[in-house]
């Protein structure tokens, strides 16, 4: 089939476009969306792949160094025993949450605009969780014993200590990753079958055919597929809330001033989705342009996501303020010192104010519809929010640890180039996985799009 015909973005100013521009036929939709997997490689994609590849190599070099020489090649010290490792862990796992939020929660809420972007974001979830999952292992003094966190009949008769939040983490992250994979794969099967039947090269057909498991869209298959998909969405919804709540318990269950806070679970979940949406935008705006998908990913989508980011930004802001009030109200001198003195005016005061700007101030642009529809602004803000949310974790972890109860043990934390290299490396590795994903499977769910189109047409015919 020839190159797909793209309806232009005919949007009168002030009017939001539909979630689907034009009414392409099933064939056109299939062609347009499936062809992302076999279209010729663009130069931009190759360049991005090269950069991400280099960063990934660097990542594994750094990991090798860390494992060979010991965790001391990082900047961590006493009292700041957790540094970049845990910051990156929390940041990445948070980013994952937007994916599940869009693909699961919005599905249950029957938000049509999630359809075209859910696989994209779900993929983002998977790759973000992969980045996150590396850190709990890497930051161990003896990573080769990480399996001691899981229950198995040890010859010493020892078991994990489940009063600690870390085994909870292990369980939550593992579950989150596996359930996300299953959810993602289940939705992918019909499209894999389509690729099996449509892909140009025979080898591709065979490969896709294997992963399609012989799907033929029979009544029976659709019947169970539909229910299972909804159930997984239903399970993923409390799961996504639980995961970052449990991550927050790594801190909230301790007595450390700045960690010892009951507001953390909801605060962390909101922050996670906040940063996740920022990352979705960061990835989607370029991808949409490169693959010319303006008709299926429309300004309507961006508008919705911008509004959600505004909401999340306010939740985060509320959490900051609430924390200030609580510590003041508690009258605990150690608790009060953290947010009132240490964070804004301590060794890392600059980081605090940058964070406030990124997470609370700049997002206020989205009160304006014009801004919500301006992709340049969206992209810039998204980047700032990514930074801001990383700094928030820095504030919580490093800044709180650097000054706790006894001033005698206060000590500053300075990251080493290994810390920075690993952070950059995970960004590259994440990008690498994502670029491969874009080329490997249709990142806009074809079958779901066709069904949605049918429903839209159906509604239009019989209002």
């Amino acid at each position, binding site marked *: 089939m020839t190159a797909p015909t793209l309806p232009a973005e005919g949007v009168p100013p002030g009017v939001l476009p539909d979630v689907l521009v034009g009414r392409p036929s099933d064939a056109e939709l299939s062609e347009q969306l499936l062809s992302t997997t076999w279209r010729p490689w663009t130069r931009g994609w190759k360049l991005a792949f090269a950069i991400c590849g280099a960063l990934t190599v660097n990542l594994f070099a750094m990991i090798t160094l860390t494992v060979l020489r010991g965790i001391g090649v990082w900047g961590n010290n006493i009292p700041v025993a957790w540094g970049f490792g845990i910051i990156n862990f929390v940041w990445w796992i948070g980013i994952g949450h937007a994916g599940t939020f869009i693909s699961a929660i919005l599905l249950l809420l029957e938000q049509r605009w999630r359809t075209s972007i859910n696989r994209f974001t779900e993929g983002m979830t998977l790759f973000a969780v992969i980045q996150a999952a590396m850190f709990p292992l890497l930051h161990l003094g003896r990573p080769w014993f990480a399996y001691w966190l899981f229950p198995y009949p040890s010859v010493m008769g020892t078991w994990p200590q489940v009063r600690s939040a870390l085994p909870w983490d292990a369980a939550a992250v593992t*579950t989150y990753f596996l359930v996300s994979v299953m959810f993602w794969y289940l939705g992918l099967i019909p499209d894999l079958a389509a690729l099996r039947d449509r892909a140009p090269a025979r080898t591709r057909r065979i490969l896709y055919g*294997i992963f399609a498991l012989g799907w033929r869209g029979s*009544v*029976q298959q659709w019947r169970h597929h539909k229910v299972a998909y909804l159930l997984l969405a239903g399970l993923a919804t409390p799961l996504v809330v639980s995961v970052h709540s449990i991550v927050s318990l790594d801190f909230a269950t301790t007595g450390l001033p700045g960690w010892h806070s009951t507001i953390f679970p909801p605060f962390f979940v909101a922050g996670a989705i906040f940063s996740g949406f920022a990352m979705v935008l960061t990835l989607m705006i370029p991808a949409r342009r490169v693959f010319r998908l303006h008709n299926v990913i429309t300004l309507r989508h961006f508008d919705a996501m911008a509004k959600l980011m505004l909401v999340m930004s306010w939740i985060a802001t509320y959490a900051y303020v609430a924390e200030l009030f609580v510590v003041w109200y508690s009258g605990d001198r150690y608790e009060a010192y953290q947010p009132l003195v240490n964070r804004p005016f301590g060794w890392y005061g600059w980081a605090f104010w940058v964070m406030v700007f990124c997470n609370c101030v700049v997002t206020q642009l989205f009160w304006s519809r014009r801004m919500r529809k301006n992709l340049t602004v969206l992209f810039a803000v998204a980047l700032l929010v990514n930074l801001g949310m990383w700094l928030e974790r820095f504030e919580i972890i490093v800044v709180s640890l650097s000054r706790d109860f006894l001033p005698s043990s206060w000590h500053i934390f300075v990251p080493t180039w290994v810390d920075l290299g690993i952070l950059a490396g995970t960004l590259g590795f994440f990008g690498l996985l994502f670029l491969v994903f874009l080329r490997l499977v249709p990142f806009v769910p074809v079958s779901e799009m066709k069904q949605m189109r049918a429903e839209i047409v159906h509604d239009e015919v019989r209002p």
Partner: protein
Amino acid sequence: MTARYARSVARPAMLAEFASGEALLDGIRALAACGVSRFDAFTPYEVAGLQDMLGVRRSWLSWIVLAVALVAGGGAYLLQWWINVIDYPLDIGGRPYHSAPAFLPITFEMAVLFGGAAALFSALVLGGLPRLWHPVFEIDGFERATIDRFWLAVGASDTALDRVRATAAVEAAGALCVVWPATGGER
């Protein structure tokens, strides 16, 4: 209308290709009018109303998931209790051996994990997957069943199926083509 879904359309006697879901439904109605009653359909996406027309009840897979989730969660809690109270009790910061609140997160996660796995795998198994080859794949043009064509199938076991009347009926309903796989001369 007596159309119903045939549980065993492993070897379809007749298949008809339609250009849209609506056309597919029309075809079913037409055949049902001829007394044909054992249908199956292969569609690129769920066609609204198809399952109702064939009288397919909602999948009972939810109950499997519920059962598995409950067992997994209960098992996880029991394991934690047994570890800390029976097998190797230790004084951990003066906390009680049976620290119920601390056992809950893992309990919940295990329930979700195994429940999710149950959902995926039962969906596949109940859908007869994995099965990489199926007779219908041999039919020319069937590959578009995942793209933009809607195939109707009638089970070989359907005694009411008459070749001439059925062909006429579906073509009248807008079938693009009708296929009668060689089925050992069964009529």
